[in-house]
């Protein structure tokens, strides 16, 4: 079976993010760009499905030229091929437009299972995978902390506030995974070398048959009108622990009448 995995290149989440003051789009220049950490769990989960069932993992991303780096990383981990949807007209696309593009790419690829992270670590919207499922007319099994595919059936343990639900569906389907599902493998040197010769196909919106008017900033169903520093909390006190910090905290809790 062919398994699609969505990956996204984002500014290093441990750094400080910036918005362009004119367009309110994320500034990518100058930031270190990495594969979204949540997507590494997705790649790992997809690889394990293929290792158990046979087939191939196809890594997919939508993004600028440099986004190819995360596809190479996915292939270095073990994905067999990659689709890169790169088109200047996609810049500023919202979650719905992104879902349209990815759904069209999945359809074109012939994959019958899609694995994605629960949400991106830069935007946190978390609606793209289920929207892709709806556009394809497929079930979605979200928040998986365990995933198993066997004879055409996909079964997950879905993280819930109380524990987990066992959820099942026939293929084709879309699954989103949490960070708890696995420990992603590191690309081996051999994997990195092999990734260089694996097929990476570049696609535009025209290749996917999507009207350009349906994607990009102009098609977005909303506009950002302001972005301002959040009101600062009252200036906090910062102390170095020289052995007296516990007393200071206890005094503070007493001031607040917690003790």
């Amino acid at each position, binding site marked *: 079976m062919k398994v699609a995995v969505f990956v996204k290149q984002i500014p290093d*989440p441990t750094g400080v993010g910036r918005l362009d003051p004119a367009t309110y789009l994320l500034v990518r220049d100058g930031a270190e760009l990495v594969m979204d950490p949540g997507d590494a769990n997705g790649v790992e989960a997809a690889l394990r499905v293929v290792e158990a069932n046979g087939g191939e993992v196809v890594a997919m991303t939508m993004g600028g030229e440099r986004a190819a780096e995360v596809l190479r990383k996915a292939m270095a981990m073990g994905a067999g091929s990659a689709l890169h949807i790169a088109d200047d007209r996609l810049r500023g696309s919202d979650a719905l437009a992104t879902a349209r593009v990815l759904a069209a790419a999945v359809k074109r690829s012939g994959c019958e299972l899609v694995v994605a992270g629960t949400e991106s670590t830069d935007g946190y919207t978390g*609606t793209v995978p289920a929207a892709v499922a709806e*556009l394809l007319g497929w079930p979605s099994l979200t928040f998986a902390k365990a995933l198993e595919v066997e004879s055409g059936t996909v079964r997950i343990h*879905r993280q819930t506030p109380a524990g987990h639900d066992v959820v099942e569906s026939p293929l084709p389907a879309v699954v989103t995974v949490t*960070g708890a599902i696995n420990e992603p493998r590191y690309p081996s040197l051999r994997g990195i070398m092999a990734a260089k010769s694996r097929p990476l196909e570049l696609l535009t919106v025209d290749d996917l048959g999507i009207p350009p008017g349906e994607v990009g900033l102009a098609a977005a169903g909303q506009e950002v009108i302001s972005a301002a520093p959040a009101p600062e909390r009252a200036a906090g006190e910062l102390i170095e622990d020289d052995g007296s910090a516990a007393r200071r905290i206890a005094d503070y809790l007493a001031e607040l009448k917690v*003790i």
Partner: protein
Amino acid sequence: MGPILVVAEVAGGSPTPLTLELVSHARTLGDQVAVVVLDPDADSVLPALGAHGASQAYVGREMAFREHLGQPAAHVVSALVDRLHPSLVLFPGTQEGRDLAARVSARLQLPVLANALDVTSEGEAFLVRTAIFGATLDVVTRTKARSPLVLVRPKSFTARATGASPPKTEELLLPADAPLGARRLESVVAPSAGPGLEEAKVVVSGGRGMQEAANFEVLEHLARQLGGAVGASRAVVDAGWVPYALQVGQTGKTVKPDVYIACGISGAMQHLVGMKGSSHIVAINKDPDAPIFKLSDLGVVGDALKVVPALIEELRARGRT
């Protein structure tokens, strides 16, 4: 203008607190507040929804809404939105709400805004406030669509009852040919992870800086001394140190206690959005540049594994066992 439509959630025969927050706030956004409730227990929550301001309820009572993930609900909610043309649809920012909003968005080609902390009206449009980059930047977005879909974070609004009577109801039926999709076979409840993280007045939370799972015992001890609950960052939940029920943050719980004590938590954006509303924040972290210190009222640069046990001793000396 169409009504404000609120998607209600039911848990244990009651509307969830977030549902009542949304219904209450919807009253400030439009004259007419309608709710859609899809659950076999729907009828039991109608009086509370009415009391908080819903004048009309669309009710689906079929088991499929509870047993199946997203698709049956998306089917009927999409049809309802298409028929009512609500001026705004508010979804609870929960796992279920997110799946549903995503599907309705795709089905009706309507944009969806996630993680809203505030929604106000501006003429025919709405202004939606979200916070990004570790809640350091407030972003305001203006809706353009006819029926914008907005996912709201818990505790963004206050639930207020008006004491109005139960809403008029109309039944929604799932068409026989509607795809049901993924099915819940079983719900497994993990052993109780301590009472009321979301209600606790004091939350003691731990992150990677606690070094290993066993060290959460000292946090439990401190929480007991303070009559509080233990929370955790996503990193340690993903590492399997503590159950997901303890997770505070974007994909976990939103807490607003009187005092939040962050131990060995650097303050990833994912975590900050879940605790930023705490009245007072104490942070203990080795890294003086940790983002958590930007939010803390009292920050301690130090090793949580030393400071927390010392604090337990100090509280014991002050009569807190």
